[in-house]
């Protein structure tokens, strides 16, 4: 028992020492993630404060969409979205072969490697936003919560699919950090009430590239605003994810056959 405690203490000391080395950096990193994720909600706040609004949506409701989006990222980024940066780095350096040499599914290895402690800061910011937004709307019923939970899972699926598409791209488009810019720009469509977009875009982002599933659809369900086509979109999310997996493995095959 004593040795276990001693061991535990040693580990804590090491972790603490590690964090001490970059103490400012870690604290600021978390703080910054919070600030960064608050940007778009801040802009929404400023717009509403000026007396304007999205038709049919109160400020809290609009913020909830953005909160759900951030929350989804808060789960996705620490656990699996990091495969994008892993692929980006390793393919560029030519060290991706490390994964290919191990007797395990490569995607699994890449995801393990991609685990990022710092990204949990996003979970905090998402949680804070979520709490704030939720406090300003009537409490959702249990049914709404269940619907929300299911759709939130689909949201994670969509984010997973995106990480696969982006990561797969990087096998060919070596070292291009602009994939993040591409994702950020497209994900804007999921941060606002779908009703503001034209019919064409609404359908595109609900059924074809289900970006709306990341923030808008789960939030709507929670608010009892149940958007039409949520069920179909759920199905499409699964298809999208499947497509992502196929794409990723196809690009990987391409990469390995070309000799990396």
């Amino acid at each position, binding site marked *: 028992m004593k040795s276990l405690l001693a061991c535990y203490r040693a580990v804590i*000391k090491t972790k*603490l*020492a590690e964090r*001490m*080395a970059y*103490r400012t950096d870690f604290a600021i990193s978390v703080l910054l993630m919070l600030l960064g994720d608050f940007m778009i909600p801040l802009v929404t706040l400023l717009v509403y404060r000026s007396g304007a609004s999205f038709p049919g949506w109160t400020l809290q409701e609009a913020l909830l969409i953005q909160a759900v989006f951030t929350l989804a990222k808060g789960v996705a980024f620490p656990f699996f979205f990091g495969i994008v940066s892993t692929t980006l780095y390793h393919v560029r350096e030519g060290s991706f072969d490390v994964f290919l040499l191990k007797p395990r599914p490569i995607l699994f290895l890449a995801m393990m490697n991609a685990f990022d402690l710092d990204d949990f800061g996003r979970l905090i910011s998402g949680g804070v936003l979520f709490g704030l937004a939720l406090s300003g709307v009537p409490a959702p019923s249990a049914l709404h919560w269940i619907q929300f939970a299911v759709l939130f899972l689909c949201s994670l699926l969509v984010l997973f699919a995106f990480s696969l598409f982006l990561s797969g791209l990087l096998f060919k488009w070596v070292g291009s950090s602009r994939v993040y810019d591409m994702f950020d720009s497209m994900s804007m469509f999921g941060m606002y009430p779908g009703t503001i977009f034209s019919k064409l875009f609404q359908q595109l982002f609900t059924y074809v590239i289900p970006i709306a599933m990341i923030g808008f659809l789960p939030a709507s369900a929670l608010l009892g605003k149940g958007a039409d086509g949520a069920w179909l979109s759920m199905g499409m999310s699964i298809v999208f994810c499947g497509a992502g997996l196929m794409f990723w493995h196809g690009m990987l095959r391409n990469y390995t056959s070309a000799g990396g």
Partner: protein
Amino acid sequence: MIEVHNLYKTYTTYTRGSSFKETLRSLFKRETVLVPAVKGLTFKVEPGEIVGFLGPNGAGKSTTLKMLTGVLHPTSGDVRILGCTPWKQRKRYVRNIGAVFGQKSQLLWDIPPLDAFYMNKAIYAIEDAAFEETLHRLSRLLEVEEIMRKPTRQLSLGERMKCEFIMAMLHRPSVVFLDEPTIGLDVIAKEKIRSFIQEMNEQGVTFILTTHDLEDIEQLARRVIVINDGEIVFDDSIMALRNFLGAKKKVRIVTEQPSDWYGIEGVTVLKLHSAKDAELELDTDCLPLKRFIQLMNERCTLQDMTIDALPIEQVIKELYGHKERIEKVSIVRGSSKSHHLITK
């Protein structure tokens, strides 16, 4: 041309402590620790010399080189190179020096070295005619005329190193500083670089290089300065370096009949391969080589004999082990200049 006098450099770092309390306290207050890297270096280099700096890791070689190139301000001391104090008149000073700092590349990764050469042409304000001539000469000498038109990322390390050298010498500097110039290169590339340095030296360029590669030293440097723990422990010619361990030689001797080597003054038996085959250490201070050979002929019939200087690694290890300056009374063989080992 290069005068260094009493050069000191002390770094300031911070301790973090290892106990829990100390680590926590380090959040608010840190203790400074002074690390002396260079402690009172003094030496001179004449134009046209090739000087090699040797020393174990952390000895202060790189720190010294940085101060000589103007990159680092010393804590105290004087340096005059080409009439300038490097860190004080940096912009004027660096126009006349070249430097290749190991892995710190001046080339641009995605475009050919040739483009980087033209960039340096503008930086050093080299005249068109002079630039073309120098570029042509250097690229021919280093055999990079074809490859310098390919993007840098497509070149091997050896090819990149050659281009780095060209970058450093396009403006025809009179002094060139090299920090580990042959590190990571294959045998052929190393040879090419070394012969290039020799060729340039014959044309009057002074070279200061730091290295761990003893072959670099043996092939290039006529003068060696060994730095250990921030101080010079040896400053003399390469011959003197060899003779440091007292003019000893290694002799491998094979005889027709079994022979006995013990009890001869000046001869130590290193290894007996067999009764007819021995490795000896000969101290020529005690027993001159001529006498030794005479002795051999008297005692036995020689079948084979090889005489070698002691491997330089041994000398270096010995010097690295020295923390204090070495006392050596005047006998220094083969040293034509007046640099002798530093006396306490």
